[in-house]
């Protein structure tokens, strides 16, 4: 009796899962075939789709802008019946929600580019149908961040999801801000802290990146691939960072990035400079007022030469759900939401840095100190794409050990090799 009931319940549950998944597969298949079939040119950009109902996910800050853009989109095609619902969904959470249930997820959604691999693995993203224009109008790195293999899988939306240097101009002069040594010296004079989240893999990877390490995607069995790097040079760079952190241990503070805006808003100010994420720019600017300074990351002196610090740089992308019932309309909308005009609008209203090569040169962007600093830094960066989950934690450990432990060159070399081995999961 007991067994029978338990069995019955188990079968019922399994059945419901299988039914739900099966439905999902069918839809995914039919919509993608519909997409490729519809690409025969009949003059209608929607390829016959009408009575269109779309769901769009956007970040809460961007919701009003997105609604306006969607209204413009509807106005652009007055002969079509288009119904667009815009819903708030955090970009950090988008992939998890889409993967949770692609059918219930939005047709068009915004997400951070580090989620691309996860979304791709489950085939939840539809490739961009008309990619030539998208590739041409966006920066090369942002396109690379949305590309897997030869296919472009999402439309670049912003180009500023990274970190940069913020400083208090009353302590650190613009000249000081050019080198890490200069910043540390200025901070020491004022008795104020420099904050860098060295234990966080997102920031910590700048140490080996500065020495020439770079990412080359993921191979078939899911292992992280690196470029052909010069290990000695990387170790030299690590030694330089470690030495600097120990020499200035009184002012160097490894703490999460929110500490920067907080420490600058405190009375008296505790923090003078730091490496902060673009998402905190408003809070820092608010705390510092007229003293707000922002620039690309400084250089560091490695064996007598000043090396530019290389960061990890992310992009926000807009993707089209593979399960969408209106693939053509979704593609058109995603394209519209990421074109030059839309990106400019975001730059003006939200201070989000564009990935569009023309929009970057606009006054709204160049006049914004934080934005230009981030975009400036993006030239010296590794795009945050095709990264395995095993990347972050070993990088964070490496970063932490640089300032926590007092290691000589050989120990640091061993530590770096261990980090790479751990990332590759060897």
């Amino acid at each position, binding site marked *: *009796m*007991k067994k029978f*009931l*338990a069995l019955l*319940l188990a079968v019922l*549950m399994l059945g*419901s*899962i299988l*039914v*739900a998944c099966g439905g999902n597969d069918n839809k995914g298949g039919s919509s993608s075939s519909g997409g490729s079939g519809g690409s025969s040119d009949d003059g209608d950009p929607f390829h016959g789709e009408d009575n269109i109902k779309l769901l769009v996910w956007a*970040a*809460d*800050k961007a*919701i*009003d802008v997105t609604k306006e853009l969607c209204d413009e989109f509807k106005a652009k095609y007055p002969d079509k019946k288009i119904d667009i619902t815009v*819903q*708030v*969904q*955090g*970009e*950090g*959470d988008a992939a*998890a*929600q889409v993967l*949770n*249930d692609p059918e*219930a*997820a939005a047709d068009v959604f915004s997400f951070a580019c580090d989620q691309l691999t996860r979304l791709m693995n489950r085939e939840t993203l539809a490739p961009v149908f008309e990619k030539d224009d998208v590739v041409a109008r966006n920066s090369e790195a942002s396109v690379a961040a949305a590309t897997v293999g030869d296919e472009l899988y999402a439309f670049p939306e912003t180009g500023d999801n990274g970190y940069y240097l913020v400083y208090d101009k009353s302590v650190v002069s613009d000249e000081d801000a050019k080198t890490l040594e200069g910043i540390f010296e200025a901070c020491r004079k004022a008795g104020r802290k420099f904050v860098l989240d060295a234990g966080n893999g997102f920031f910590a990877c700048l140490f080996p990146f500065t020495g020439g390490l770079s990412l080359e995607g993921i191979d078939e069995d899911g292992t992280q691939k690196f470029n052909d790097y010069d290990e000695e040079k990387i170790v030299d760079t690590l030694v330089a960072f470690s030495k600097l952190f120990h020499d200035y241990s009184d002012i160097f503070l490894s703490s999460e*990035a*929110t*500490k920067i*805006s*907080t*420490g600058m*808003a*405190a*009375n008296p100010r*505790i923090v003078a400079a730091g490496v902060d*994420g673009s*998402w*905190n720019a*408003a*809070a820092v600017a*608010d*705390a510092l007022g007229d003293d707000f300074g922002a620039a690309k990351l400084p250089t560091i002196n490695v064996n007598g030469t000043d090396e530019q610090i290389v960061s990890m740089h992310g992009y926000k992308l807009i993707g089209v759900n593979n399960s969408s019932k209106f693939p053509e309309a979704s593609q058109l909308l995603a394209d519209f939401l990421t074109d030059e005009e839309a990106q400019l609008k975001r730059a003006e209203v939200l201070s989000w840095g564009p990935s569009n090569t023309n929009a970057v040169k606009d006054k709204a962007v160049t006049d914004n100190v934080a934005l230009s600093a981030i975009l400036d830094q993006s030239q010296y960066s590794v795009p945050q794409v095709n990264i395995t989950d095993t990347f972050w934690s070993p990088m964070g450990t490496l970063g932490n050990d640089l300032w926590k432990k007092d290691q000589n060159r050989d120990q640091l070399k061993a530590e770096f090799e261990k980090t790479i081995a751990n990332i590759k999961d060897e």
Partner: protein
Amino acid sequence: MIKSYKARRVLANTFIYILLGGLGLIWISPLAYLVMHSFRGGKAELATTIIPQEWTLDNYAKVFNPPDPNVINFPQWFLNTFIIAIFSCMISTLAVLMVSYAFSRLRFKARKPLINVGMILGMFPGFMTMIAIYYLMKAMGLISMPKVALIICYSAGAGLGYQISKGFFDTIPRALDEAATIDGATRNQIFWKIILPMSKPILVYTVLTSFIGPWTDFILAKIIVGAQGPEHYTVAIGLQKLVGQEYKAQHFREFLAGSVIVAVPITALFLFMQRYYVEGVTAGGVKG
């Protein structure tokens, strides 16, 4: 060696009280931090000192009257959670007590097997079935009505938590039931008029647990509501969002204020029901 008994006792007590005091301090400090810093003013979002230097009610004002409802819509979250918790609480309290009564008082063939099945099913951790629950709710078309879906999720299986109240009912003498039966009461009347009035402590306990469960639940609520807009969030999901990387630097104090407010209904409910709790316990004790 200390000979005097009194001196030894004082020494032992001092040691014990210091230890307990220390543990108490550790336990209370996060709560004290939470309450204190929810009133913190000034420009810094995160704490720079242990004791706030400026005090304000602004954080609470911002929580109740959010400047941007797309980011924080606390009144709506609060209302959602309240509705869900009230309904789940009513349904599951009723279910738990009725199931317990049936298992405690009625004798029927499937009683033992059902008790066992209930025990076994109760041993599976709830989050194991969560994905299945999501797809079941979706198949019923309830995902677009997350409040209804959540009420169903929280109260549908509630009857399985019958063990404690069944144990309590078992201690009430069956002679009372028999006396009532002789006077012409039905099973239903016995439950409502004899057993329930004598079971106030367990009633209070059941109400409290079945209210707090939905009120504080995060994982299941996140799965069911996650794909919906913030107007459908519960307080747990909404507050968790506020400590995410994107929001922490700007909304940390609102998060603290919100967390304090979340505790208010539970505390109020407990204070209100506490007198019945104590009364019931002592009344039960006298009767043995």
